């Protein structure tokens, strides 16, 4: 045993030593050059308790900021929160660092961002997924804080229509991670889309996992435990569901695993195009409800760094492509032409305002 340990330690040391044999870079004095040529604008971001590697909205936001930093040559600072109690200190620490723009990811930061915006009128703020309210919970606008909102239910509506149109068992399902407005907004749209399909085609496709009227449904309880997602999805599959939309960040991958195991069950991805981001499951991704948080962040940073920040809320819609549904990829031949045409029609109606998809979770 000792010999094995010794051998392992020795080979480890050799590997380290070899790895350390690279050649030193040339001394250069371009510290002031390169990326900093753009401007001395400093854009900062505070995550919610999920952290920046949550494969969901924190990550999308961080990617948008990274892109802005790279392309616009600005400085970026990102800080993670581990709990709600971290928000205020994190924002304060960014204000102290002379950040020009501070972006809060997630509606849980509403109060801290609002308080900071009121206390620091010369700093610009943005908040993803929530607008601001006064003490009577009425909407309020602040001069230096911009809400970045998404009418996610519009895209989820289209996905629900497609799901109902491709289901052969007549049952589809959805579930969430935690019952939050930014989660149930997906489920509301999905349910309405299925209902629309039933109405148009005289069908009776059932949705498991969400009751829009009562605002109750199935949730796994967190955004981490994939096993819960797998178990819940297996339960739905046992009840006959053959299209599932998991609105739970990485927990949804558990549902994808359950679907793959079951065979002819497909998944509707959320936030990003899962066909691209989860290649392991690309063959079972029917479509995805995409929410372009990264683009919204990028645009906000770009405006602010050019000196044209406005507190006008950004609302991602089907019209401005802040949200949308992903291409059908492998399912292109499975989705019938009638459904495709109907989805295009519905999309046009929503964009023109003839059709309004409502959700109580919409800001």
């Amino acid at each position: 045993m000792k010999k094995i340990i010794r051998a392992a330690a020795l080979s480890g040391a050799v590997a380290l030593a070899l790895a350390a044999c690279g050649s030193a870079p040339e001394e250069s004095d371009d510290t002031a050059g390169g990326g900093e040529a753009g401007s001395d604008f400093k854009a900062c971001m505070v995550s919610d308790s999920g952290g920046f590697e949550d494969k969901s909205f924190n990550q999308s936001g961080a990617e948008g900021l990274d892109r802005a930093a790279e392309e616009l040559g600005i400085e970026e600072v990102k800080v993670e929160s581990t709990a709600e109690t971290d928000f205020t200190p994190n924002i304060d620490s960014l204000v102290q660092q002379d950040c020009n723009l501070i972006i809060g990811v997630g509606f849980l930061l509403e109060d801290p961002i609002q308080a900071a915006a009121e206390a620091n009128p010369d700093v610009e703020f943005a908040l993803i997924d929530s607008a601001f309210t006064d003490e009577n919970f009425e909407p309020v606008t602040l001069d230096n804080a911009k809400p970045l909102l998404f009418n996610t239910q519009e895209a989820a509506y289209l996905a629900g229509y497609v799901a109902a149109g491709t289901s052969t068992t007549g049952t589809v399902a959805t579930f969430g991670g935690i019952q939050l407005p930014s989660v149930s907004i997906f489920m509301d749209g999905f349910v309405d889309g299925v209902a629309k399909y039933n109405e148009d085609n005289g069908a009776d496709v059932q949705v498991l996992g969400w009751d829009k009227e009562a605002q109750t449904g199935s949730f796994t309880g967190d955004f981490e435990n994939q096993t819960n997602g797998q178990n819940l999805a297996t339960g739905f599959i046992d009840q006959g569901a053959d299209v599932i939309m998991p609105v739970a960040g990485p927990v949804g991958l558990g549902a994808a695993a359950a679907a793959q195991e079951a065979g002819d069950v497909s998944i509707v991805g959320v936030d990003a195009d899962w066909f691209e981001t989860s290649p392991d499951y690309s063959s079972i991704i029917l479509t995805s409800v995409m929410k372009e948080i990264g683009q919204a962040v990028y645009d906000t940073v770009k405006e602010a760094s050019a000196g044209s920040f406005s507190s006008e809320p950004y609302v991602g819609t089907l019209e401005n492509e802040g949200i949308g549904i992903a291409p059908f990829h492998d399912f292109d031949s499975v989705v019938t032409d009638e459904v495709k045409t109907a989805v295009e029609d519905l999309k046009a109606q929503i964009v023109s305002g003839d059709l309004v998809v409502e959700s109580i979770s919409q800001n």
Partner: protein
Amino acid sequence: MSQATPAPEQPPAGSTAPARRDDGLESRAQGALREMLTSSWLVTVAALVLALVISGVLIAAADSAVQDAAGYFFARPADFFSAAWNAVWGAYVALFQGAVFDPGAATFARAIRPLTETMTWSVPLILAGLGLGIGFRAGMFNIGAQGQIILGAIFAGYIGFAWDLPPVLHLLLAVIGGVIGGGLWAGIAGYLKARTGANEVIVTIMLNNIAIYLVGYLLTTSAFKRGDSNNPVSPPVAGNALYPQLLGSQFRLHLGFVVAILAAVFVWWLMNRSTLGFAFRAVGSNPNAARTAGINVNRMYLLVMLVAGGLAGMAGTAQVLGTEKVLTAGIAASFGFDAITVALLGRSKPLGTFFAGLLFGALRAGGFAMQSRTGTPIDIVLVVQSLVVLFIAAPPLVRAVFRLPSPRGPGAQPAELAAPVVKEAAA
């Protein structure tokens, strides 16, 4: 750790046999606890230094400039060392500036604000740590401070935002509500231990989970929600129910800090000067002897948990009525677990817990500056805390590293190391 094996010492049980079902497991846990509580102050400081050194290595390893420089270590080793030094020094300087004093701040108020933040963060840690310390000295491993803080916050928060009362009275009632909430939650574990002998470690851990889901559920009900909003955040606590700010509105420091100091004095009085505290300690040192001496051990189990839970509930009030001013699902952050470390580091004594709470408050407060100024992951703070516990829990290791003498004089080291083995064999 099998419960089937007979416990080493087995005097005839008193009338209340159920409480003693798992003595073998428990006496060993209590032995470990006693070992932690009796280590010298020097060991505590040494453990802290060791934790900072090892965390320094991790900070350097996680730093991208250090990683780059390590790639050509043999070509220019100086680069590697200067990069590592810069990373570690920069991180610890930022930690200090975020926790104590920031000389680069624009105003004096900003410069001393970090210290007040440290004090703010320390309040729940001190209060919950005091409660846990009482439990530890009475021989009870209460892991449930997290749940007790949450329950305290739920009670205090609800009274705070739902009721409409005059100043002073409102705050007083909200705090009392929080104390009752925390006390009741801990009381469940104490009652179950006293009546059925249920292990308080397991019961309190499970109660933590129940509390976490309970607050999550309550925040979806109309009684706790804000108007029509679906966000899981309660309405703000009424002004009358808030702890007054100690230094004006530009600091977050509130009266809860004074409450924590008073609570520390109270706990000192309780444990060192009162009959009840004597009974607590007697139960902690030897429940069988305490029982023989006429102390109702089961009643003490319940009382210890009620007092400990009340203090943890008070920590919840500091959060909801002082620092955060609203009830959220994450109101307790990880204070309940950090408080265990605080109590162990403070060796369960009020003064020690107070300073340990301040230290951990400083680590929390400084962690934000460390993350935002130097990009050091916030998790490093957690690593420092965890390493402190690790070393506190292993005094012989720390003594060996620093070549400190063993408390039992030279030559006692082997005996000490052998002691657990003898216990194992006996069990």
